[in-house]
């Protein structure tokens, strides 16, 4: 998959050149070709229209309305939904919490994923065992992960606090204190992400030719210099890919929050997607939920765009 993405991005990069060359060469597109094109593209266009474009437009439409308890738009309010959200302190708090969460999760996932992958790449006895263990969370469903971490964080019988009490450390109410709840959710999410990230990074590390390290070794290049100046640039497409995926995924985080904190305490973990869920499917407030969806989509688009702008400069495709 990583390979594919790399290839696609490569194609994307090459696209502008191809387009400009298209301008100079005029293709003779006859009617039959056009018909063929419609036959081939039509079905996928239809699927996109039904399942992507229509819901998108519908969401945009609903975001301008108040909806009644049957979910029907009844009163047109223009941008009032947007205005009331952007001036609501609780929504702004959600926004801030989401940024904190997304950035923390993305960065920690990347760092720990890379660390584990690098550690497992060393050819020592038992490294196979660790490879299996590290990629283990791939096979863990959100609900199982939530149960596991709920037990870890449990205030009376939880493992973490039992360890803390043995070590005479202060006992933390992980999920009921606003600051700690966010920490707990971040830890659980990073843990969940690690299996996939580890596997992708581990695979990428294996594609770095051993000769590069040997050449560096012979020249007396230190291990850390090798990591930052050989390993990182060599796997930069993968790092880029993982960072985009992780970022988007963490914006969309839902399961762990629903199961562990339900957005609490005091909305400390009430991230944007969870809020949308609550407003749409618990409060039946589809108009407001649509507005929140539109805002979230814009935010993700901006983040992804920035990431492409900033990070892609540092990515080398081979």
């Amino acid at each position, binding site marked *: 998959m990583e390979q594919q993405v790399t290839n696609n991005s490569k194609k994307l990069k090459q696209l502008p050149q191809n387009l400009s060359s298209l301008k100079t060469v005029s293709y003779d597109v006859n009617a039959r070709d056009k018909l063929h094109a419609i036959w081939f593209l039509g079905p996928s266009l239809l699927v996109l229209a039904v399942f992507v474009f229509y819901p998108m437009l519908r969401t945009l439409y609903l975001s301008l309305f*108040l909806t*009644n308890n049957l979910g029907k738009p*009844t009163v047109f309010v223009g941008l009032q939904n947007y205005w009331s959200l952007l001036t609501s302190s*609780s929504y702004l708090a959600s926004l801030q919490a989401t940024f904190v969460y997304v950035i923390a999760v993305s960065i920690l996932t990347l760092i720990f994923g890379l660390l584990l992958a690098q550690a497992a790449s060393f050819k020592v006895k038992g490294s196979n065992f660790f490879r299996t263990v590290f990629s283990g969370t791939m096979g863990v469903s959100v609900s199982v992960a939530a149960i596991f971490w709920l037990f870890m964080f449990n205030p009376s019988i939880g493992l973490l606090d039992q360890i803390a009490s043995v070590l005479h450390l202060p006992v933390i109410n992980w999920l*009921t204190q606003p600051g700690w709840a966010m920490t707990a959710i971040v830890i659980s999410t990073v843990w969940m992400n690690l299996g996939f990230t580890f596997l992708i990074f581990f695979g990428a590390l294996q594609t770095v030719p051993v000769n590069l390290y040997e050449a560096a070794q012979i020249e007396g290049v230190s291990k850390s210099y090798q990591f930052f100046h050989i390993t990182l640039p060599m796997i930069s497409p993968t790092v880029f890919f993982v960072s985009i995926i992780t970022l988007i995924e963490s914006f969309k985080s839902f399961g762990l929050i629903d199961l562990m*904190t339900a957005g609490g*305490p005091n909305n400390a973990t009430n991230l944007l997607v969870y809020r949308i869920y*609550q407003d749409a499917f618990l*409060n039946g407030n589809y108009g407001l939920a649509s507005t929140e969806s539109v805002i979230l989509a814009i935010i993700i688009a901006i983040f992804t765009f920035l990431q492409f702008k900033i990070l892609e400069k540092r990515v080398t495709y081979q």
Partner: protein
Amino acid sequence: MMKMRQALLKTIGTAAAILTIGGVWATQVRAQATKRTKVVFWNEMTGPAQQKLNEFVKEFNQSQTKYQVVSQFEGNYNEAVQKILNTHGTDASPAVFQSMDISTSQIYHSGYTTPVQKFVDQDHYDIDKISPVARAFYSEKGKLLSMPFNTSQPVLYYNATLLKKYHITPPPTDPSYSDITRVATQLYQRSHQKVKGLSVEIYGWLFEQFMANSGESMANQADGHNGTPTKVNFDTPGAIKAMKWVQENLKSGALMNFGSGSSASANEMAAFLSGKLGIFLQSSADISQLTAGTKDKLGITYYPHPDGQKANGVAIGGASIWISNDKPATVQRGSWEFIKFLMKPENQAQWQAATGYLALNKDSQQEKVLQELYQKVPAAKVPSEQLSKTKPDETNSGVFLQGLIQERTLTQTAMDQIYNGSNIKNSLQQAEDAMNTYIKSNNQANGVK
């Protein structure tokens, strides 16, 4: 080659025979079923309640030949509400369905249901046998909208064995806040802070009951029973007293905050069952789980009330059963027959024994199965007594308001803040303002002036 072909032919022959037999059998079964009127019943019960409910369905189908009730599980309460509203008028919609307490106003205002009062009147059904508090919850201006079914009230649970161990006098059956504070503090101190005294989950339902038990309405228009509410009031004296009580116990360290959400109640239950928590407020439906989960003796009291005033009684929670109006009269009649079956004294008694939900038929208390239960677990009688003792009024019949989920979210956020030490009045006021804004726009969207 020849052999292979023979084998193949044999296999095909056998398969064809099986298909034919199967087909004939299926047609016969279908033929039998089509003689009866099909009544699709949507429910959201899980665990032992689901099991018992399916037994009822089976028994009902066997008890008569006119109707065939088909029970379908629809996930959790919240999801079910959306499905009910979204499928109405289509082939996929249910004839009779279970929906949670706080969706009552929403379901009623959808106009998708036939009030059960219609059938009560047609049949001259003796509705007085059914618990008046439960009925009050699901009534609008005295008219019964749906039949209360799985019903519980919040009660106070305590670990009697633990209290005995630390030589603590148990709380009275109808305790005040200070009664509970005493027990909780003693337990916390005498156990050398190993056992937490008390937990009050951050749960909007409990907050509503603090107000109900103080005799205060949350929403105007008599908690919505007289008309669509336009305003709520959260920072009432009763609510403030209850929150002060919580903060007082938090300060002393006796109260354990488990937070909100499903994990909170699970953690709370786990702590209680493992003897690390002495007292907690929770639904009476938890009783079967509690008696099964620990060998310690279980104590139960009524929901606590403010000092210096009498308990006004608490509202119920749970869910009720509704009849859809998008089905022909015969199907609706079948739905009603099924509801009547469920409400029979013996069935209600079995229901309580099997699930912990309260038997709503007054005659159920004389049933053998309940008598045996009370003998085995004397405390199990307390919730039933609380229910029968409660006289329904404007404040303890539930809040008839659309957007109760929003109300719960907001009151829970306020509780969260209060549990983390913030000013009670400010937090409640903030939640109240947010709720009033919500009500205003919701009423606007639904065409209520």
